């Protein structure tokens, strides 16, 4: 753990001055989840710093998605806590989103019968306040808020490379566009940390490359990213730091070089020790 801290070099953080280590945004400590007798997560500690891209890898069933679900309140941890910017998070999905954690899903979960723009507008939910009366009265404030929300949503769509089309529903988008729309929707929450669950699953190399660039652009906007992925090339060329999970335990943590050399990681993936 300590060695990781000292080895970590925030090369990409141009905005941060001097030797100050970047601020920790998200810190999960001792997260434990049990499904009946199965220990899905075993006291996992995890942290994300400002401007970082963290990869979360591990064999199938290692607990990666459970870990995401746990961070975002879809699964209640049996033990442990999550802090965001030092504040203890109430682990309910909408509270987590309000606090500044947004996510995508492994099996895309868009709102299939809404337009792409509407999908992103739902992402703006936390950043708009208009209530029933305001919506009924349609005063100046409402119209302005609605207009600015639409502007922002269109910008996020544009950012991921989609165009708003009023006659199209999200489910008729291509697979890659659906993935990107999901990211735009999550970005619309203006999160501090974005959690991506297998963003390149089912993509061809060209789309994967585009996704890689997109994630880097997201980081350049000042959003820290945690990404679960099985595509190791993607992970190793993208992430500043990699965390390896296996059977619910944190197996290893470090830069891509360190992780690849770690005998425990190799054993977890290949089932035998190479030594």
């Amino acid at each position, binding site marked *: 753990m300590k060695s990781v801290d000292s080895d970590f070099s925030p090369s990409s953080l141009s905005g941060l001055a001097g030797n100050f280590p970047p601020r920790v945004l998200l810190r999960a400590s001792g997260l434990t989840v049990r499904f009946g007798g199965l220990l899905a997560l075993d006291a996992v500690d995890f942290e994300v710093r400002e401007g970082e891209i963290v990869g979360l890898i591990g064999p199938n069933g290692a607990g990666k998605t459970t870990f995401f679900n746990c961070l975002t309140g879809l699964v209640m941890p049996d033990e442990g806590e999550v802090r965001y910017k030092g504040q203890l998070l109430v682990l309910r*999905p909408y509270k987590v989103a309000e606090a500044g954690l947004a996510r995508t899903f492994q099996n895309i979960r868009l709102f299939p*019968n809404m*337009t792409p723009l509407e999908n992103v507008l*739902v992402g703006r*939910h*936390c950043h708009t306040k208009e209530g029933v009366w305001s919506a009924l009265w349609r005063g100046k404030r409402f119209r302005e808020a609605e207009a600015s929300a639409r502007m922002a949503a269109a910008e996020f769509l544009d950012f991921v490379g989609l165009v708003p089309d009023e006659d199209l529903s999200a489910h008729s988008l291509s697979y890659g566009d*659906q993935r990107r729309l999901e990211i735009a929707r999550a970005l619309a929450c203006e999160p501090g940390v974005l959690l991506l669950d297998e963003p390149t699953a089912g993509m061809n190399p060209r789309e994967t490359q585009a996704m890689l660039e997109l994630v880097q652009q997201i980081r350049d906007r000042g959003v820290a990213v945690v990404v679960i992925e*099985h595509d190791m090339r993607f992970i190793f060329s993208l992430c500043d730091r990699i965390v390896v999970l296996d059977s619910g335990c944190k197996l290893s943590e470090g830069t891509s070089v360190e992780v690849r050399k770690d005998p425990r990681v190799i054993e977890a993936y290949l089932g035998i020790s190479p030594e």
Partner: protein
Amino acid sequence: MTPVPPSASHLTSRHKTNWSEMWRSVLRLSGRWRFVLGIAGALFVWTAAFSPWASFAFGYPGKMTLSGFPGGARVYLLPLLLLVSLLFFTLPVGATAGVRAALGLLFIAGYNFIAISWEGDGVDAVAWGAWIALLGSLLLLWAFASFLWEEADGRSLSGQTAGHTAVKLPDPIWQMLLVFGGVPALLICFVYALDVEESSRFVSLICCLGAGSAALSSLGFFNWTSELLARQRTFAVILLLIAALVFPFTQDGNGYWLRVLISVGVFASAAIGLNIVVGLTGLLDLGYIAFFGIGAYVSALLSDADFTTVHVRVPFLLVLLIGATVAGLVGIFVGAPTLRLRGDYLAIVTLGFGEIFRITMNNWNGLTRGPNGIAGISDLEIPSLFGSTPLNFGDAHEVFGVSLPNFANYYFLCIFLFIGMAILFSRLGNSRIGRAWMAIREDEIAASSMGVNPVRFKLLSFALGASMAGAAGTVSAHVTQQVSPDSFTFMESILLLAAVVLGGMGTIPGALLGAGVFYLLPEKLRAFQDVRMLMFGAALIIMMRYRPEGLIPNRRRKAEFREEKSRFSAGFLKGTGELDLMQQNPVQEGGT
């Protein structure tokens, strides 16, 4: 529901094809014969329209024994025949439309054939005109169907592709003119249909209209009109509104249809509330009529009825507010503990609540007078805009020299109620709140991960829907002048839900049309009083099978009912991740 196993459904469909292929091979026609038969069929139908259908006079409506003029149901053959004749020139694209129109002709002929032989005690009562009509429509059906078969064999389904092509519209001026002509034409049709008295004529008319619209719809006509209406929405709404306001002046002081339309209006208003709950938020409420009932009872108790237990009279506008508030509060009370549950549980809990409400009203003699209900609810009185004497809804009025029956007052009130509900629905629907509702409907987990508090918004939707029903209920109590528990049975909830679903979920015209169908048709189909419910049940099954998105669907949501959700296929596209590490493990920095 679980996705259909594709291979299994494939098997059954192949099995079906074999069976129908046998028929096709027998009935297949070559190109020339199709036209010969088609033209012969059209001529037969044309002749039939002017020939006697009943062999002796026994009171079958429409002077069906006379030849030389298309009286009674016969006249409805003509528009369809015209359509069919035009469709000949559009073949093969119009084959589907032709089949539908020919089916309409067949239904008209068949229905009248059966009805005449039924009422005339035997097939002897049927004259040659009806036989020819049957024969002609069958020939037409055959001719058009053989076109369809050929297309299906040649795998070039040209008629079906009309749905997705871009719609071309004329200039805005022409658009407005079309709307300006189309809306009144539609209303004239409507008023004309109301005036059709005999059930034989009415059923034939419905067959004619239904088959005609089905045929036009396969040509993409309704995509075009919905696009047109979407562009010219404001204009069309204003026209409709004017027409609705003018309607009472055309009734010669007769209140019958006004009364029917009032109940349509009241239920359409309630249906809009239910549309928020079911259509926008996707919550299944099977006890919705209870909230309507709460409003009605509140209104009945607070208006000093003849048979009441509470002797106060509260101004109506206040009653409206109280009714809506009480219903909304009860909605919160019922919803708060149950909205966390899964959809089906909510359905049964709301159903249970509906029954509890009805039984409570039945037993609470001290307040609600039990099964007798509260009768003699007085007419509404609201402060007049023009004078010091309040406006009493029980009075007939003279406006612009035309005498309006007292029901006209309630009719106008209902229009205002409906407009209010429609504004509420569309404004909330097109806002942050509406989007949150829809997001919950589409995917609750994803919605909550975007910061939408699902319980809070579901509760808001449920309570709002409840209070809208309550508001409609307060008006309804004054219209019917009495309330009793048996007006708020489970069947009424189902009727409202069916109105919403059949009309088209999540749309205002759908709610209006659905309520119209369910509260107007029974009036027109009195001859079928006994089998009414049977027909209703069968209609539900058939609609859900063949047009689950409703009569006027939300343009985009249509797909939900038609296509498999893409989400299901997502799982299969996933690559196997583990192997990647093994292949790429050799150190190869930044390889991409």
